[in-house]
Structures are given as C-alpha cells and as structure tokens.
C-alpha cells in the first residue's frame, strides 16, 4: 500500500513541479537580445567603416531567384568592408505580409526587403519604409546608372524610397496558335480589334479574352483609356468609367471569362488550360508557361489601346524598413545586391529586365519574345492606388465581382462614385 501511495504522490508532485517550472521558466524575462538603438545616420565615408554589420534582406521568389540572390549576397565585404549581407528567405509574398505585423511588433523584421511597387505606396505613405536619399548620400553611392523610369516609380514627394532592381511593363498575351487557326492576321493594337478577334476566338469551352477581376488587370485597362486612380483623387474619372464599362461590354457579349468562373486561381491557369485565348498579364507568363504548358505558342505584345497607350509597370526594389537600426549599411547592402554582376546574374537565371538601361539591351537579346514590350517602357506608369490600398482593392474587386458575377443593375459610374466617396 505504501509503495502505491508513494507512486501516486510522486506522480502528482511531479506534475506540480512541472506546472510550476513551466510557469517560472516562462515568466523569467530573458534580457533583450538586441538592445534598442536609435537609428542614426553615420557621417563617415563608406570605405572606412570597420565595425562589422549584418544586414538582413527579406525576399521571396522562385528557386532560381533565391539561389541567385544567395550567391549575389556574398562578398559584400569587398565593396563595403565589414558588411555582411544575409538573405532571409520567405516562402512567398503572402507569407511575408502575414508575418510582418508580428515581426514589426517583436522587432525581428528584416532590415531591407525586396518588394514590388504594386501596393508599396500604401506603406510608403504610412511610414513603413523610409526615404533613402540621405543615407545614399552618406554612403557615397551613385545611382546614376539606374533607369530614370524605375527611380520615378519609387519616388514619392521628391523622395526616393527604394533602389530599383528591375522594371518591366505589363503586357498582353495571345495564344498564337488559336489566333492563326482563326485566320486573324496581325496582332491587335486596340481594344476594338481585340473585341473583333474575341468574337471569332470564343468557341466551345474557350472565351476570347481573360479579364481577371483583379486590381492589377483592372488598373491596366483604365490606363489604356488615359485614366488612373490618381492615388485616390481620380477614382471616378470619366476615363476610368469608360474603361470599366468596356470590360462590362466584353462580359455582356459573352467574350470574357474571369479565373473564378473556370475554377482556377489566376489568369495564367486559365490561359494554360486553353479556356481563354488572350489575356492581360506580365513577364511571369513566360516562366510559367514554359513548365505548365510548353506546347502553347504565346505571343507577347504591348497593351492594346483604348484611347491611348498605357500600361502598368512592375518594378522590384530594395526598400529599407523603418525599424532598421543601421540605415546607411542597409542602403549599402541594397546597392551591393543591385550591382551590375548581380543584376546580370538575375537577368540570366530568372529572366527579369534589370533596372539599368546599359544592361537592358542584353535582356531583349536574351528574351526576344519581349522585344515588342521595350517600346512600352516610357508609357508605363505606377499603379496609383490610394494610400489605403488594401481596402481600395477589396472594394473595387468586390464591386466588379458583384456586378459581373451577380448581374446587378448598378452602373459603373455609381460603383466608382461610391468608392470615391470612401476615399475623399
């Protein structure tokens, strides 16, 4: 009896100790790992900086891009003594943005992040990213070889917010085989021509054109009519109304499809599965189709015109987060990652147009299918979303889905007017 009682006592006491240990363990606040420092720009020339600094770079992308970046990150010491560039890979953009709030709260976020301009304005306005002109000057860096258009995209109120890595206009993609089979001749240059072609191309399971009800694609359409969101000031402009009404017309005539209707996630899948003959899109189609549908002959052409030439421009850049402790070193790390060899390696392995005109010519050599796009670069603009971008996107997409998938009577003008109200 004593042994059994003993065992029971032992076990319950053990449980008690376990409970207390865990509580005690957890309550013991370990000293802060990184003592908080005031970010002060260092006023010395870059070359004589001996203190070792590690800058963490958050980025994501394909395997090739990851591997290329890991290689590019090494050896920063040679240009900036004492500097180590550490890549902090994220599985995806979604993963980064989901975890960013937590990392900001705990101050474990990376120092610089490679981001696309789409949606970046919101965080520039709200102060998540810092203007880098001062730090660039302090570090003695020359940004002269970077494309002006790319720098313009990353400039807000005369301040530069990122060191650009790439610049690529959006484009229009057509299934050349379907096009030829329908005997359609030259590629289209206006939406009217697209409409004509779509009428012939819509047959069986295939719709003539994929119009993904997603803010990226909608923005491209409005830019081709000379419109723009104007960062929230011109949401309900006549040009915007005209553009979206044209989209509705395409749907009303049964010429268009959005990925949701086909059970897919994005327009590329619809295209690869031959459910759509044409689509707005970007350079990512090339890599995607190469593996997903290598038998398809895709032709890349400039965005068709509504009333004018226009398209969005995608520019990736390295931005500095506001909690970065050593901002000058952060800027140096970004500069290191965008040096000529780095950009060339990315260009070759990943296939993105670098943000330096000197290297860009080689890009069009290596990627001749994008040749027609080069002409669009001067016309390509930033997205112009209002500062509350995520909210805006939600409202815009919801309204368009409501109208097109739900078939309501509300007019485009009413939709844009009500959204404009929210952003006044």
């Amino acid at each position, binding site marked *: 009896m004593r042994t059994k*009682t003993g065992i029971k006592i032992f076990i319950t006491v053990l449980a008690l100790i376990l409970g207390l240990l865990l509580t005690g363990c957890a309550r013991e606040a370990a000293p802060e790992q990184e003592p908080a420092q005031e970010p002060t720009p260092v006023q010395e020339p870059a070359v004589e900086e001996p203190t070792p600094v590690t800058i963490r770079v958050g980025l994501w992308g394909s395997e090739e891009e990851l591997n290329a970046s890991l290689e590019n990150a090494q050896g920063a010491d040679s240009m900036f003594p004492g500097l180590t560039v550490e890549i902090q890979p994220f*599985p995806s953009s979604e993963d980064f943005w989901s975890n960013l709030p937590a990392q900001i709260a705990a101050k474990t976020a990376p120092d610089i992040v490679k981001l696309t301009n789409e949606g970046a304005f919101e965080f520039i306005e709200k102060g998540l990213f810092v203007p880098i002109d001062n730090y660039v000057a302090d570090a003695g860096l020359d940004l002269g070889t970077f494309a002006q258009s790319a720098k313009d995209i990353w400039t807000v109120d005369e301040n530069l917010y990122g060191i650009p890595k790439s610049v690529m206009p959006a484009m229009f993609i057509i299934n050349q085989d379907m096009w030829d089979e329908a005997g359609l001749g030259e590629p289209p240059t206006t939406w009217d021509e697209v409409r004509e072609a779509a009428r012939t191309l819509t047959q069986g399971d295939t719709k003539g054109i994929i119009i993904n009800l997603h803010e990226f694609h909608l923005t491209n359409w409005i830019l081709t009519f000379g419109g723009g969101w104007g960062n929230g000031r011109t949401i309900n402009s006549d040009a915007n109304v005209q553009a979206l009404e044209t989209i509705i017309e395409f749907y009303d005539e049964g010429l268009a499809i959005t990925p949701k209707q086909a059970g897919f996630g*994005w327009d590329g899948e619809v295209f690869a599965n031959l459910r759509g003959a044409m689509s707005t899109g970007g350079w990512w189609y090339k890599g*995607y189709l190469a593996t997903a549908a290598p038998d398809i002959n895709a032709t890349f052409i400039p965005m068709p015109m509504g009333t004018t030439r226009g398209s969005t421009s995608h520019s990736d850049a390295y931005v500095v987060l506001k909690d970065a402790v050593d901002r000058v070193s952060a800027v140096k790390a970004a500069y290191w990652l965008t040096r000529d060899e780095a950009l060339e390696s990315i260009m070759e392995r990943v296939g993105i147009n670098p943000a330096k005109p000197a290297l860009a010519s080689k890009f069009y050599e290596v990627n001749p299918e994008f040749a027609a796009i080069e002409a669009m670069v001067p016309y390509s603009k930033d997205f112009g979303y209002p500062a509350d971008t995520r909210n805006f996107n939600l409202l815009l997409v919801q309204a368009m889905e409501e109208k097109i998938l739900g078939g309501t009577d509300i007019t485009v003008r009413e939709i844009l007017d009500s959204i404009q109200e929210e952003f006044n």
Partner: protein
Amino acid sequence: MKKFKIKPFDIFIFLILSFFALIFILPFLYAIYTSFKELKDVNSIVGLDRLSFDNYIMFFTNPLYMVPRWLWNSSLMTAIILAGNIIINTMAGYALAKLNFPGKNIVFFIVVATMMIPYHMILIPVYVNMARLGWLNTMLALTIPYLYQCIYVFLMRQFFMSVPNELLEAARIDGLTKAGAFFRIVMPLAKSGLITMIILSFTGTWNSFLIPSTMISRREMYVLIVGLNSVKNQFFERTNIIMAGVVLVTIPVIIMFMLFQKQYVEGVATSGIKG
C-alpha cells in the same frame, strides 16, 4: 450472446458506406494522381507512361527541401506535445469530471470559453514573448504553450463523466484513495476517450500550420507541412509538387490512425458491477 444483427441491413449499410467513402477519398486520390504528374499534365488525364516518382525524388534530393530534417522536426514537436497533452489534459479533465474542488466552475468556464477565442487573437503577443525569451526558431516555441489543449480537457471530462460513480464508490470501499482510483479504475475505462485524444491531438499537431509558420523562419527548423508549403513560386503554384507534399504529410497520420482505431473494439466496456 451474439450481437443482434440483420444480414440484409448490413449489406445495405455497406453500400451506403461505400458511396460516401468514394466521395471522401476523391480529393486524396486527386492529390496522389497529380503528385505523379508533370506540371503540364496537371489538368488532364494521362496514362501510366507519363507518371513518375520525380516529384517525390525531388523532395528528397533537392537541398532546398530538407524533407528528412523537417520530418524529424514534426515528429519531435508532435511527440512532446502529445506527451504533455496526455498528462495535463487527462488530469484536468478528470478533476473537472469527478472531483469537487474550489473554483471548479470557473475552470470549466475557462476551458470552454478559451475555445471561442481564435488563436489569431493572441498569436502576435505570444510571438513577441517568444522573441523576448529567445525561443524563436527553437522547439520550445513550438511546444511549451501547447502542452495543453482546452478542447481535449473538455473531451476527457465528458468521457470521465460517463464512468459510473458506483464504480468509484466500490473502489473507496476497497480502500483506494481518490488519486489511486484515478490511475487504477478510471483510466482503463476511459481508454477510448484517451485513444481519441491521442489520435486527434496527433493529427492536429502534425498538421498545424499557423503557429509553426509564424514562430519559425529558418529553413532547417521548419516543420514538414510548413516546409512543403514553401514550394510556392512567386506567381504560381506548382500543383504537382504541392500535391506530392500533401501526400507526404498525410501518410504518417493515416498510418497512425489505422493502428489506433483498432482500439475501438465494441464490447470491451462493461458496467463493471460484478455479481
């Protein structure tokens, strides 16, 4: 005495079960089938000649995907959490079911109310604490806060409640203490509840994504499901590879379940009152 059964009825049931079984297995069959295909064949039906183990081989040979390491991480995390759950949840559930202690009602309210608060609410404060303690990217962050689960405390309570009090009375008369009764009488009877908790806790922990993906940022410390999910490209998903990942993650759970469900053998329970 044999169970009362009607033959034709059983056949009818068998047919209905088969129908539903087909529906239940469909997505998994899709996952298996897709995992053997190349990306361009993903949305079409292809013959055996176009199928291969390439995707699986890729997972085990590509240095970017450290599947054996991730497998280890998942297993360790699950084992620790399971051990904690078995001890802590069972004890608390028993206390709530059979013992009268001060604050009993408050504790029960805590158990049920906690389930109503999505973990998202406290995820970030917990993350900040983990950062302060230096537990990020370690097994500690994945296990310590999860050594208990309110839902299983609740579950064990319900199962313990179905143990008749007469049994406990009989045990008292035999000279066992309350604590003794717990270990020697009650536990064996609530065995099916315990098995259930083990199955469900194992599954839930093995498949858990939110917490590991937040607390762990270093590749080598990923758990399996997070690691396999990281194959996403920036602009599109390689569905065939993702499906291979889904299959890899699911197989251990299926094996575990098949082994444990054998314990659900009817007829083991008796009312326990002899004579």
